[in-house]
């Protein structure tokens, strides 16, 4: 019985680590897609209007900063839980 409990404890400990990994992976999916769209569109508009590249780049970084925050919350949460 105690042996079984020991094995179970070990398994649950491992599951915790795996869960953190999966949690962070899930948190990275949305922002990954978001940043992909964002930068793609920004590159498109820079190619269409090179004279507006500076403004587009600034706005792009702003957008990335907002989207990226979600992924980073997942990253921080993996350490907290």
């Amino acid at each position: 019985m105690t042996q079984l409990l020991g094995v179970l404890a070990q398994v649950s400990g491992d599951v915790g680590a795996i869960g953190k990994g999966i949690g962070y992976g899930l948190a990275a999916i949305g922002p990954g897609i978001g940043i992909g769209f964002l930068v793609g569109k920004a590159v498109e508009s820079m190619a269409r209007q090179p004279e507006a590249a500076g403004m587009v780049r600034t706005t792009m970084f702003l957008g990335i900063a907002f989207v990226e925050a979600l992924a980073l919350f997942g990253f921080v949460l993996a350490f907290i839980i």
Partner: protein
Amino acid sequence: MLAAILGLSRPPEGFHAPGTEIFDYTKTCLIGSGPYCVTRVTFWMLMSTVIIVTVFLLAVRRASIVPRGLQNAIEALVDFVRNGIVLEVIGREGLPFVPFLTTLFVFIWVNNLYGILPFINFPTTSRVAIPMLLAILVWFVFNITGIVKQGGLRYLKNTLFIPGVPKALYVLLTPIEFVTVFLVRPLTLAVRLTANMIAGHLMLTIFFVGTWYLQWKLITIPFAALSFALGTFITAFEVLVGVLQAYIFTILTAVYIAGAIHPEH
């Protein structure tokens, strides 16, 4: 192998992946103890102000109309914040904020660069206290700016009740706006910077510890070389991340100040 020849240290028993404990310097106080403890992190954070002040004073010591050398570099930096951030995001009303934003940018940049400087090797901004303090400072700056420029009640009204929205939606929008503007803004500012620096430092540590671990046996030396190459690549990447995070922190601050100055945003 190389370290074994040089007799630097004995081969390890087993591989221990570095974790969050590499950010904990609280047990090794340089000066003082308890809550007044000056750790290595605090020391380098304070040193960064000394470094910045020294470099800026050296730059303007013999200021000439045609700048050269260091003065040229520092003027380019201030120009970048003035033209690239303040004039583009806030406009001419934002010019009084150029010194504040430049200081913020340079401080964060230097503290990020510590992560890749030899013998320091620790980005002080990866301890959440420093970005959090900066975020709280920014919170006070943009709120006080809004109150001074628009008046307290009008600032609150313009921030919480976005104009041009059907009245019924305010039930939903006002709480969301309140949480976003007054709680999430400083939180994301601090977490973004900290998490980026933690991630970078962890990656660097893992690859270089891996290199050190793998070079003990002849058969694993190719893997050590790979690990070292990737660590070097990430070092270069961290140079980019350090300046990019400083830029993003500064430009977001400028956006928040712009929102406090122009109510229609």
